[in-house]
């Protein structure tokens, strides 16, 4: 079993900044051996098991525009959240050099999780500085799924698609 999962986040920065939303402008992909749901969308659900290391990596689709992960915050499960909700931060133009998000690596070990429970997180990205440069997205999630279950789910969805 592969012990590392990479979650790659591709961001269309120019479009996100002009539309002032991350909705439909973020594409998330992972290489989880357990499987995943909604690959290529901002609703990515990564199946994982405790003990695995997950690493989030962000890429700007246009190489010359800056983007970095500012925060990844898990959301309490009892809270009702609309998917892909956009949050604006008006104080975003005060960025101290020591807060440089470029120097942060977002990686961690999956702790004990409830089987079949979805852990949604809020992904906050920083694109340059100025107004609307910090935007958040509620939608991606982690899911503890026994690998057999994940495999079964994948095959059933494939059959349904056929």
């Amino acid at each position: 079993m592969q012990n590392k999962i990479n979650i790659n986040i591709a961001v269309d920065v120019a479009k996100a900044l002009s539309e002032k939303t991350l909705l439909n402008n973020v594409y998330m992909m992972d290489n989880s051996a357990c499987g995943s749901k909604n690959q290529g969308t901002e609703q990515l659900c990564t199946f994982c098991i405790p003990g695995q290391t997950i690493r989030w990596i962000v890429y700007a689709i246009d190489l010359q525009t800056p983007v970095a992960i500012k925060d990844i915050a898990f959301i309490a499960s009892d809270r009702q959240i609309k998917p892909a909700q956009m949050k604006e931060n008006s104080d975003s133009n005060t960025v101290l050099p020591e807060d440089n998000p470029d120097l942060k690596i977002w990686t961690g070990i999956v702790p004990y999780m409830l089987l079949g429970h979805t852990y949604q997180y809020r992904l906050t990205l920083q694109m340059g500085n100025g107004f609307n440069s910090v935007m958040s997205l509620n939608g991606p999630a982690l899911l503890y799924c026994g690998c057999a279950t994940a495999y079964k789910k994948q095959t059933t969805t494939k059959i349904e698609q056929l």
Partner: protein
Amino acid sequence: MSQEITIIVLVDIQAAIETKSLKGNIYLMDNLRTDGSTGEGTGQLITAIDGSYWCDGSQCCDVVMNWLITGIGSLPITLPHNYYHTRSKHIEHEWIQSIKNAHLGKNTAKKETNFDTTIIEKIGTYSKLRTTPNKVMDIEIKSLNIFGEHFDSSQNTKSILNLLPPQISDITGSAVDNKVLFPAQYGTPVPIKDGWYWSATVDTSKTGLHNYTLHITLYDFVDEVWTPVELTYDAQIKVSNNPVRNGFTNAGLGLIPLMY
């Protein structure tokens, strides 16, 4: 992780040619203000370059820099490669058409003048470029004004002449000599700078302030001949070397903070 750095170099070509210096006539800006670049939009840009290292001391970030140079008030660099050529062809086509019309009697007013002969003289003549002090060659494009129309020096003032775009011809200086900056010219399918641009990689382990020199070629329009004017300008990069941290723990690897 740092993204690619792009430095936009804006040159006030006419003023630089007149004063024979780029000082005060050049404006530089990059995309790293969040990382601490200073002097954005002035001639004193210091580009902040984030080198970074892992906890074991190894380098984890290499940086790529690009320079895009353009003239203030010139035709935009985003125009297609062949814009000058297609415009020149189009202008000739228009002239030929107007001669035809004049001969067919559609344009009687111009038939009276020496319109035909002046135009006929111009058809097939192109701008000239001085390659060495004694040598001049055709460059198969016509002189255009800032609206993309033919520039006629006998009728128009020089202020609306579209000066040929400036070019970076080399990048040298102490940063290159000390093997901090490794510059080279690359080809690109992107429709900028005739498909060529200058790029460099940076050895981010060498921290501190480093100087480099941009060699810029401008083209002056002297007696209907484009004459190169070679100028240089000094710019700086500031390489910092910081340790990377885990975003969740602010230190090393830990558990993902799930909410239960």
